[in-house]
């Protein structure tokens, strides 16, 4: 008789919880447990996640450890250790770009951040950042502009994302790739969407900045916000 895989239901439930909830509501060991689903087939990764975090002094320590250190933990094979090291290197690369120009002292520094972020990107994407002048941002969401054009953005999903990421004062960056930086109707629609719909949840749009190459166009500083209904 085939032995029932008692872990299969648990992994699916954890993934669904992650997809339906919000990452911030997960403990460190739960996030690590989910990642280990992809590294360790058919096993209880919860204990392993706890042990990793305890042994390496926290979740960041796990991804700084080398493979020789990781294999000493119960449940971590050499193959799994290599995968964890791989993830650590991947996150290091991601952080290098994420952290560049992240101190926002004024709107010029926010524009610089957007220009760097969109550098070499041809796609029309919208980047929403949680920023107040002089503070770093840890929170951002990227959304393909085509989703706005095709009405694939739901107010409920967007509200959830903004609220769960604790976004209050946001700046929107819209990448135009190779096109002119002059805003079009889609750009105004995006700005209007965020400006009007989420004010009720204390989300304020500080600016909407169009980017193309090395040029920017600030909708706020060019008076576009003056016509928005408050």
């Amino acid at each position, binding site marked *: 008789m085939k032995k029932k895989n008692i872990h299969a239901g648990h992994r699916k439930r954890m993934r669904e919880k992650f997809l339906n909830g919000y990452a911030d509501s997960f403990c460190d060991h739960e996030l690590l447990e989910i990642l280990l689903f*992809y590294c360790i087939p058919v096993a209880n990764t919860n204990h392993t996640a706890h042990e990793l975090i305890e042994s390496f002094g926290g979740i960041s320590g796990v991804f700084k450890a080398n493979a020789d250190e990781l294999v000493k933990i119960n449940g971590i094979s050499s193959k799994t250790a290599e995968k964890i090291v791989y993830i650590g290197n991947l996150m290091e690369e991601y952080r290098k770009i994420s952290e560049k120009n992240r101190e926002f002292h004024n709107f010029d520094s926010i524009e610089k951040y957007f220009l760097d972020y969109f550098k070499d990107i041809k796609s029309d994407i919208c980047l929403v950042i949680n920023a107040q002048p002089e503070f770093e941002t840890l929170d951002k969401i990227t959304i393909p502009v085509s989703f706005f054009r095709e009405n694939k953005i739901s107010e409920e999903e967007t509200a959830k994302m903004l609220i769960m990421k604790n976004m209050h004062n946001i700046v929107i960056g819209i990448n135009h790739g190779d096109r002119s930086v002059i805003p079009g109707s889609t750009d105004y629609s995006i700005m209007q969407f965020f400006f009007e719909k989420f004010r009720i949840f204390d989300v304020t749009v500080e600016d909407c900045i169009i980017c193309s190459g090395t040029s920017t166009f600030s909708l706020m500083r060019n008076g576009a916000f003056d016509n928005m209904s408050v």
Partner: protein
Amino acid sequence: MNEKEILENFISIFDKKEDAKRVTDELFGLYGNLNSIFDSNHVFFMKNIEMREQTAVLINIISAINRRCEIEQAETKYLNSADIAKRYFQARLTGYSKELLIAAVLGRDFEIIKEEIITNDAVNNVSAAFRKFAETAFSCEGAKYMIVTHNHPSGNSRLSDSDVVSTVNLINAMKMINITVADHIVVGGRNSVSMHQEYGKKMFESIKGYSLK
């Protein structure tokens, strides 16, 4: 490897190899680079791309874990600048739905000797709270400075009048027992304010070794 190859390799190793190229091509078509893919949300991936739930979770779990690592790495044992103090307490207080008031007692080099939760509710009795601050300081050998922090569960880090008044009173109270209050950090959501940066000499005495930049 270029970014596309990195993502394709990543999906191949950790998820389904057969889907890796197609999913990578479609994600790059929409987002343009690896960073913006990681900064997005599975809700958006799954709307436009035929993608397994497992793949969407895999991509989002990387940014979620990365964020935790960033928060953890903001921790430091020496609070010798307003910016370091802000990052430290922001990491400490993120996610709390109740108001917390914490005192960090520091030594002469601004090293943390002790951290104590003074109250985990809004302060009603200020004298009682000040007494607890003093008790915390007295319990630490070598205590010289104190940094106080509290959070606004609303997520708004703007300073209130009572924040200002109570800080002035605290500074005077701690002065009596030879403890210099170096700063008061107010945390609102993912942002924080240093009252020493905001008010400078109007409120705080000049402290050698504590940077306001």
